[in-house]
């Protein structure tokens, strides 16, 4: 149980960081929507699980939060990438690419000729 959550939180954190990198400061709802849209129906999770992940990222200093006003004049908490967060994003993205490329090569059928 704990393991599964960690994996999910790890990727979720990367998605959050990437979203904030792309879209700039954004509130929790916006981040959730964006992740869902980008991933299509593949990631149909509860939006609620996003918030502990956001808090963890904030505690680790990768994002910062402040209260702001949304497009339709609602008070909302906006999350923003910090410099440390940007670095972390680059690192994580690199790691992720490495992992996926290794896995891709590993799983690619019938290419082990030589």
């Amino acid at each position, binding site marked *: 149980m704990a393991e599964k959550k960690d994996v999910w939180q790890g990727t979720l954190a990367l998605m959050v960081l990437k979203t904030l990198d792309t879209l700039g400061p954004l509130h*929790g*709802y*916006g981040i959730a929507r964006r992740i869902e849209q980008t991933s299509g129906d593949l990631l149909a999770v*509860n*939006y609620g*699980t996003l918030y*502990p992940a956001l808090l963890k990222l904030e505690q680790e200093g990768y994002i910062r939060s402040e209260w702001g006003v949304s497009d339709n004049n609602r*008070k*909302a908490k906006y999350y923003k990438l910090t410099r440390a967060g940007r670095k972390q994003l680059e690192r994580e993205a690199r790691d992720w690419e490495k992992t996926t490329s290794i896995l891709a090569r590993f799983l690619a059928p019938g290419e082990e000729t030589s």
Partner: protein
Amino acid sequence: MRGLRAWFWRLGSLFGKERHEEEFAQEMQAHVEMHIADNLRAGMSGQEARRQALLKLGGVEATKEIYREQRGLPVLETFLQDLRYATRTLRKNPGFTTIAVLTLALGIGANTAIFSMVNALLLHPYNFPELDRLVRVWENRGIDEGADTRFIAPQDAADLSSGAPVFDALTTYACGDFNLSAEGNVQPARGCRVSANFFDVLGVSPASGRAFSLTEEQPGADQVAVVSYGFWQRQFAGDAALLGKVIQMNGKRYTVVGIMPRGFDYPVPMELWVPLALSPAEKADRAKLSLESLARLKPGIDVAEARSAADSVAKRLQQEYPATNANRRTEVLQLRRELYLYTLPLFLLLQAAAVFVLLLACANLANLLFARIFGRQKEIALRTALGAGRWRLARLFVTETLLLSCIAGGVAIAVSFWSVRVLRTSIAPSWTMWVPGWDGIQVDCTVLAFTVLLIGTVGLLFGLGTVLHSNQAQPYNTLKEAGRGPMLGSKGRLRSALVVAQVMFALVLLVCAGLTTQAFLRLVDVYQGFAAANVLRTEVRLPEKSYPGNSQVANFYDRVLRGSASLPGANAATVVTNSPASNVDNETTFFTIKGRATLKANESPSGDLQISSPDYFSVLRIPVVAGRVYSYADNANAARVAVISRSMAGRYWPSGDELGQQIKIGAADSKEPWLTIVGIVEDVRQNWWNPASRPTIYEPFFQAPQRSMVFLMRVSSNPESYASAVRDVVRGIDDQIALTGIGTLEREITDSIAIIRIMGVLMALFGCVALALSSVGVYGVLAESVARRIPEIGVRLALGAEPRDVMRLVFGQALKLTGIGLAIGVPIAFAVNRAMSSLIFGIVSINLLLLAGFALLLFGVALAAAYIPARRAMRVDPMAALRYE
């Protein structure tokens, strides 16, 4: 790094929890509202929009819970929660809490106090760098059996230093009293003549000024002195300009060149040090063991290696110098252990007894806690039924017991600051100043760490014990039986076992107390063969400079003896080389019997040598067995005579023809004069540790005068009051002579076994505590068992049992528990007795009557403890009791 940052954040979040909650609620609120707005824009109905938004968000409460856990530190939060809960429960049961805290505080406090002694005396007796490399080195002549002299001959020490490559450096010293003249007064000072490398070997250098140089080891160049910090403060009022000043000692002028750092007084309790300047003849001496020696081992060399290296040097010397060194062995002993040959077992035993007390206290607490668990079974069952896991419950219990032990530990530590001081000052300084590390007995960091460790261990163990015990609680059964009292069974047996263990511990502790008290009384009794009452005692030391020859020395003491004997109320006065109970062994010597051929030095008979003035035997009332004791007529001009002790006569003249025989001190070739044996006196025990009286030769003082003597005077009453009169007599003869250690001989005897006395007192204290604790234990178990058996008792009474039968039931249980405890305890007590008597001098087999007395005492205490529960059982109302069923 990130982890640490997050941790601090989370720690910070423990505060202002409500604000955080509210903020998160607002954030959720905003989230839902935005989602609804989007859904509405997507064309949903208001209700559907809201439903979808909430569905998508998931369980709000679950999210909040996860969020909360991420925000704070759940472990810490539950701990704080548990702590609050534990505090509340403890406060709600003040009776339980008080007894538990006091019991534990007693156990922990006893251990803290004893450990503070062990810590100071055994672990940190000296403050020297790399203490474990320092060893004492001395020679054993093979004739000193039972004696405790640790000296070495100067030339042997030099050979050892150069011949055994295990020593970094070896130093020699010789201690004695100095007469310090200051402002017209003469005061005694404890001083030591030391080799130039003495301070280097110890690894301590003067706090100001310098130590001695090699050139100051030459006779004539040696008039420099280093003083101790304490002496500097006391004697010179901390005079900042003391260095370079001249002090007058033993009629010579010494320039102060150094002041040692605070606390340095090796060998305890020295006040000053001067160079050991030996003449070439003295240096080359092998015959007389005149110096003490101390060495620093090379790094990596252990004591066993040092011992074998020293041994091979000793063997070589045995062959090269058979006349002096035959049978002579070299001993090497770690400095740390040297002084504790006799007292180490005492402290280990005390520590063991303290641990016993703690175990007793723990058994008691365990009983109380288990009783409480039964009381709380319903609560536990309810918690389990509501989903509290084992781990969660365990944490609750551990928190509770830890809190308990922390409070108890706090009390114990607070009290120990006081009790340890009482312990330290309970023995006369005149005795404790000879015990290295005694002044260091205090509650320091090591002691506190020990106590904290103890507190933690006790708390954790109890918590875990409680957890294991409560795990059997079945929520279903317990809740079902809610109407009745909790059912026991195996737990009742466990508690009975604890009481049995308590009775056993109590018996063992009482036996230990009895043994030490018995030993103390026996040791006081050891000094038989003389009468110590009404005797004043003091030490006198004449400086060589003003008393170079025998006639001056004899003349001085003659005048002192005449002057003091003529004081009103004085019966007789005498001087002797070593008075009984001095805690110093007599000088041991070879002697030769005329007409009995002895071949080698090492085959000569040996005995203790005492030199005394004629009235010694009448002052101490030592009975004359045969012949006569010497008189003032046996002076320097008369024929040389000697008196011997009864055991010496019995050993060397079994046929009883000793009177008129001649002996001489030393081996057959010695130049000493022949002494005619004129009388036999009763044996006198010199010190408490001597297993028996040793053969002793008494020589008349006026035929063999010595500069250092112990003055003894018998008066008709109140010996202390003669101190100043004796001082005046001495001052009237020579105002440069100081008297040291003036006091009564009886006091000297009690002081000499003070350590055994304090141990007896502590043991007796522990024994009483043990008795009290075990009676509380018996009471607790019986009270609980009576409460549990009330329905049963009700049935019995209803069926016609007399109240007397019920009472017998309860008392019977008390007797049974105590009986089993004693049955187990007696063999253990005997085993402990055997161990103690092999470890500690003076302890013998337990008096069986005493053992029976302790057993009866324990039975009595158990019956007394059973009285209240028994009365309660007798008063059970059958109707009321049965109604509960």
